[in-house]
C-alpha cells in the first residue's frame, strides 16, 4: 500500500506525526507492506494532515486525518467518513494555476529522480544552453517581479549584477519570511526544495555568480532541515558543485540561519547579518546588485521569485506572461490566513478580487461571524474594509487603494477585531523590531504607541498627532519598516474611525 502524508510543519503541528505512527502500527498489525511517503503540503491547510492513497485511478484524499480514524481507513478506504475523493478533483485545487507550486505536495521533496520526473531540471537544462544576456532577457520578458514585497522586476536586477564587473558575485535567497500571514516560502522549501535550488543555479548562470546562500529564519527549523538535506543531495548528484550537471559551469550554495530579527528580511540588513554583523539597514546607494555581500555584486531575491524561474525557463517567458493582469504578470501564491474557514496556499493568476479570495475560496471567517477587515502584505500592509473588496489582486491595483500586496499574505479578521488595538500593535511591532538607524522609526514608533493609547483614553487631539507622526515616519525612514508602518495604522484609522472614537464617546 502506497500512502502520502505531509511532513510539512503545519501538518505536523496539526498531528501528522501521530497519524504516521498510527498508520505504521496498523499496517504492521495487519501484515500490510506500507510505503509511506512524507510529501510536502498541497496547501490545503484546513485539510491537514491530508492523507493520500495511491491507486491506479490516481491519488485519493482523506482529511483532516486523525490517529483514531486510521483503523477504519484500513478496513475500507472508499467508505471512510473522511474520504474526499480524488485529490486532483478537489475544487480548491482544481481552481488553481499551480506553476511555482506544481510539484509541491505531489512529489517526495528529497527525491531528485521524482523531481526530474515532474519537469524538474528542464529549465536548468535549457538555461545551460543559453548565453547570459539571453537568460536575463527571458526572465525580464516573463514580467516576473520580486515576490518579497517591493515588486521590482527580477530580470532588471539580474541584468545589473550580470553586467557588474568583479571576479566574485553572489546569489542570496531571502527566506526570512517574517510577515504574519505568510508561509509560501516555508511550504515550498519544505515541499519542493529543488525548485529553489534550480532557480538559484539559473540565477547564477545568468549573472556569473558561482556561490549562493539561502538565509532562512530560525523560526523555520523544518525548512532549514529539508533545504540543508536537499543541498547535500544536490551536491552528491552533481547538480551543485564545480560542474553543474556535467557542464563547464560551477555553482554551489549553503543554507544560513537567521537569529530572530524581523528587519533582517530587508535585503541590506540581511546582507549585514549574513556577514556576521548587526542587522542594521544600509543606505542605498550603493545598490546590493553592485556592492552587496562582502561588497561584491549580489542578487537578493525572495524564495518565490527564484523558485518561479525554473518554470519560466522550462515553458518560456511568453507562457508565464500570459497569466495575470496589467503589470502583474504570471501567478501569485496567495496565503489565506487568520480567521478564515478554508485557510492555506492558493496559487492563481493575478487579478482575483479580494471578495473572491476571502468569501469564495476562503469560505468567510472560521468563527462564522462577518468579515471586518483583511490585512494584506504583512505587518507593513494596509487593512482593507469590505468597501474595498472589489480590488483586483495586483501590485498597482493595491497601491492605488493605499495598500500593498507584499508577499501576498492575507489575514482575515471578524467583527470582533478592535482596529485601534491593531494600529497600536503595528506601532509596537515597529518599535520592537526597528534596527535603530533612523529617528522617525526608532522614536516615532514608540511615540506612536503612546499616541494610540491617548486616543484610547478619549483624547481627541491625539488623532491629529498620530496622522502627523505617520507622515514623518513615511518621509523620514530609510527602509519600509519605519516607512510603511503608517499603512496599517492609517488604514485602520481611515476605514474604521468608529474604533478610534469609542473611548471619546464614553468620555463625553
Amino acid at each position: 500500500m502506497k500512502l502520502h502524508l505531509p511532513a510539512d510543519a503545519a501538518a505536523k503541528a496539526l498531528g501528522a506525526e501521530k497519524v504516521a505512527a498510527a498508520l505504521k502500527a496498523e499496517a504492521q498489525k495487519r501484515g500490510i507492506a506500507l510505503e509511506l511517503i512524507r510529501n510536502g503540503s498541497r496547501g490545503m491547510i484546513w485539510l491537514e494532515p491530508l492523507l493520500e492513497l495511491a491507486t491506479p485511478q490516481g491519488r485519493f484524499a482523506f482529511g483532516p486525518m486523525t490517529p483514531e480514524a486510521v483503523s477504519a481507513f484500513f478496513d475500507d478506504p472508499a467508505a471512510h467518513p473522511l474520504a474526499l475523493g480524488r485529490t486532483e478533483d478537489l475544487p480548491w485545487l482544481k481552481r488553481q494555476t499551480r506553476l511555482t507550486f506544481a510539484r509541491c505536495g505531489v512529489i517526495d521533496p528529497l527525491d531528485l529522480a521524482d523531481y526530474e520526473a515532474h519537469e524538474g531540471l528542464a529549465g536548468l537544462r535549457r538555461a545551460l544552453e543559453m548565453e547570459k544576456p539571453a537568460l536575463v532577457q527571458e526572465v525580464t520578458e516573463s514580467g516576473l517581479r520580486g515576490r518579497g514585497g517591493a515588486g521590482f522586476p527580477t530580470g532588471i536586477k539580474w541584468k545589473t549584477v550580470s553586467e557588474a564587473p568583479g571576479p566574485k558575485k553572489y546569489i542570496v535567497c531571502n527566506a526570512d519570511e517574517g510577515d504574519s500571514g505568510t508561509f509560501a516560502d516555508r511550504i515550498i522549501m519544505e515541499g519542493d526544495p529543488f525548485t529553489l535550488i534550480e532557480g538559484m543555479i539559473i540565477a547564477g548562470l545568468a549573472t556569473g555568480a558561482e556561490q549562493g546562500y539561502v538565509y532562512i529564519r530560525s523560526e523555520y527549523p523544518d525548512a532549514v532541515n529539508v533545504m540543508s538535506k536537499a543541498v547535500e543531495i544536490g551536491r552528491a548528484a552533481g547538480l551543485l558543485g564545480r560542474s553543474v550537471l556535467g557542464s563547464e559551469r560551477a555553482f554551489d550554495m549553503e543554507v544560513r540561519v537567521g537569529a530572530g530579527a524581523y528587519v533582517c528580511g530587508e535585503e541590506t540588513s540581511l546582507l549585514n547579518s549574513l556577514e556576521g554583523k548587526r542587522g542594521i539597514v544600509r543606505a542605498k546607494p550603493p545598490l546590493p546588485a553592485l556592492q552587496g555581500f562582502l561588497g561584491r555584486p549580489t542578487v537578493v531575491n525572495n524564495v518565490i521569485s527564484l523558485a518561479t524561474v525554473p518554470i519560466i525557463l522550462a515553458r518560456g517567458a511568453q507562457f508565464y506572461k500570459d497569466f495575470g493582469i496589467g503589470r502583474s504578470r504570471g501567478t501569485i501564491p496567495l496565503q489565506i490566513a487568520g480567521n478564515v474557514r478554508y485557510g492555506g496556499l492558493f496559487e492563481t493568476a493575478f487579478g482575483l478580487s479580494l471578495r473572491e479570495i476571502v468569501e469564495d475560496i476562503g469560505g468567510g471567517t472560521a468563527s462564522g461571524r462577518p468579515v471586518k477587515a483583511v490585512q494584506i502584505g504583512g505587518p507593513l500592509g494596509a487593512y482593507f474594509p469590505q468597501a474595498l473588496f472589489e480590488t483586483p489582486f495586483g501590485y498597482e491595483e493595491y497601491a492605488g487603494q493605499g495598500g500593498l500586496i507584499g508577499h501576498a499574505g492575507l489575514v482575515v479578521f471578524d467583527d470582533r477585531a478592535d482596529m485601534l488595538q491593531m494600529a497600536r500593535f503595528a506601532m509596537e511591532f515597529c518599535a520592537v523590531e526597528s534596527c535603530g538607524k533612523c529617528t522617525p522609526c526608532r522614536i516615532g514608533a514608540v511615540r506612536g504607541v503612546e499616541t494610540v493609547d491617548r486616543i484610547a483614553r478619549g483624547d481627541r487631539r491625539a488623532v491629529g498627532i498620530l496622522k502627523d507622526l505617520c507622515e514623518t515616519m513615511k518621509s523620514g525612514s530609510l527602509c519600509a519598516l519605519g516607512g510603511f508602518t503608517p499603512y496599517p495604522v492609517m488604514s485602520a484609522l481611515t476605514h474604521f474611525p468608529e474604533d478610534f472614537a469609542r473611548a471619546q464617546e464614553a468620555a463625553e
Partner: protein
Amino acid sequence: MTLISSPASGPAVSARVSEIVAANAGREGPLLPILHEIQQEFGHVPEDAVQVIAEGLNLGRAEVHGVISFYHDFRKLPAGRHVLKICRAEACQSMGSEALGERARAKLGLDWGETSADGRVTLEPIFCLGLCACAPAAMLDGELRARLDEASLDALLKEARA
C-alpha cells in the same frame, strides 16, 4: 541535578568555543553560524565565549557583544528546561492568541520573557511561525502546535511545567 541552571563558564567552555570558532573561521561571514553552534551546545552564549570569539575572528569584544544583543535568539543566560513560545503576530491575534497568552501568563505566573523560579519553564512571545492558516500557534521546545484553544493550551502548559 540542579533545577536552576547557571551560566556556563571556565576553561572547558573556552576550549570548546575555540574549537567551534576554528571549525567555522574559514567561512564567509562565520559569526552567526558560530553563535548558533555555541547556543546549541550550551543553551546560551556564555560570557566567556565572547573573548574567545573576538580573538578568533579578529573582532573587538564590543563588536561581538553588539551582534549577540542585536538578535532576539541569542541568550546570555540559560533558559528554563522547557521553552514555550506563543505566537503573538496578527494572524494568531485574529484567532484569539492574546487571550491565550494572558491565560498562559496567569497560569504560569510569568510575564513574557521570564523563567520560572524552579527553572522549569521559560515563556516567550514569537512573531509568526508560518502556521497562520491554522492559528493560534505555539512552539514547545522546538515542537510546533497549531489551532490552539483553552483546552489544548492547558495541556501544553502541563507539558511545559513537567
